[in-house]
């Protein structure tokens, strides 16, 4: 059902007064928007609040979406600005790569991480853990590039910078992720990488 209409068709239906079309649009993008919000807020409650705020803002400004870019690119711009505003308001401590004492919150993962040894051992867990420890900008660029189906140019539009800068930032973010992974895993790095 969700894939029956394109984003543009759903937007047109929403603007014509069909709110269920917007609900379909939310269902289609909610996981990614929520993940991006998680990259900034580092906890589920705040991520839910930010993600919800993003969709409400997008609805409010839907008539202003010109269709020059993909809807997802436009939406991710809203996510980025909303998340940055959230961080400024809350003055969250964003963990740096050398911050040993910062607690890692990965409560978003389905199931209990602490009790699930098998999941703890999964490579995916370690990657998510390392991403959660990156700076929000680094985590966002990696997520947009690998999971958002966004080109360097589209990421540049979302973040309001040049594509070349995004390329450099992406390289640095991946390097920091690799270092973080190696640091976290120590002996287990060899098994993962």
């Amino acid at each position, binding site marked *: 059902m969700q894939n029956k209409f394109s984003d543009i068709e759903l937007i047109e239906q929403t603007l014509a007064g069909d*709110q269920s079309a917007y609900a379909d649009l939310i269902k289609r993008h909610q996981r990614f928007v929520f993940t991006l919000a998680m990259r900034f807020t580092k906890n*589920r409650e705040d991520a*839910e609040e930010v993600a919800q705020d993003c969709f409400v803002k997008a609805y409010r400004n839907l008539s202003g979406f010109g269709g020059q870019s993909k809807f997802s690119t436009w939406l991710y711009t809203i996510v980025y600005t909303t998340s940055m505003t959230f961080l400024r308001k809350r003055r969250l401590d964003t963990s740096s790569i050398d911050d040993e004492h910062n607690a890692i919150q990965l409560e978003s993962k389905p199931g209990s991480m602490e009790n699930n040894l098998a999941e703890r051992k999964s490579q995916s867990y370690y*990657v998510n853990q390392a991403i959660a420890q990156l700076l929000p900008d680094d985590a966002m660029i990696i997520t947009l590039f690998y999971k958002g189906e966004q080109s360097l140019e589209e990421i540049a539009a979302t973040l309001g910078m040049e594509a070349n800068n995004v390329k450099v930032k992406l390289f640095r973010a*991946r390097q920091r992720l690799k270092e973080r992974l190696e640091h976290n895993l120590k002996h287990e790095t060899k098994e993962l*990488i």
Partner: protein
Amino acid sequence: MNSIEEKLWNYIDGTCSPAEEQAIRNLIAADEVYQRKYQEILALQKELETMELDVPPMAFTYNVMEAIRTEEAQKPLKATIDGRIIKGIAAFFLITIAALVVIALYSSNWSAGSYSGIKLANHVSADISLVTGYTGPAFKAFLFFDVVLALFLFDSYLRKKPVIRQM
């Protein structure tokens, strides 16, 4: 000068030129350091491509739609009423008042120039009553409502003026 890692990431992303691509391919095949780094980066690349997205709560869509519905309901009534309806009502009253004035003036006896202002007003009022069939209190209430509406419209007009100037 790009580092080994940077060259390899560019190679994996496909953002380097064909000549660079060929050169890196040769280095991976010939150089052990390149080979090892390439395998490391490739493994991380695969992990990143297959990482899972976070899942929002089950009621997320419902909560967003509820928030939107609440916001829509809280929109001031002024914003939801079509301005043309207000203007239509105003036009109706203005035309009615204008018509009453014209009828009153048309039916007045202007030859009796010695009438005082009060007498003329009474005469006009009587004529209007005759023509429209309005009784005294009903007519006064109607006029009072018209005056209030006119003041309201005048107030709206004056409020709009500074906004236009600011723009």
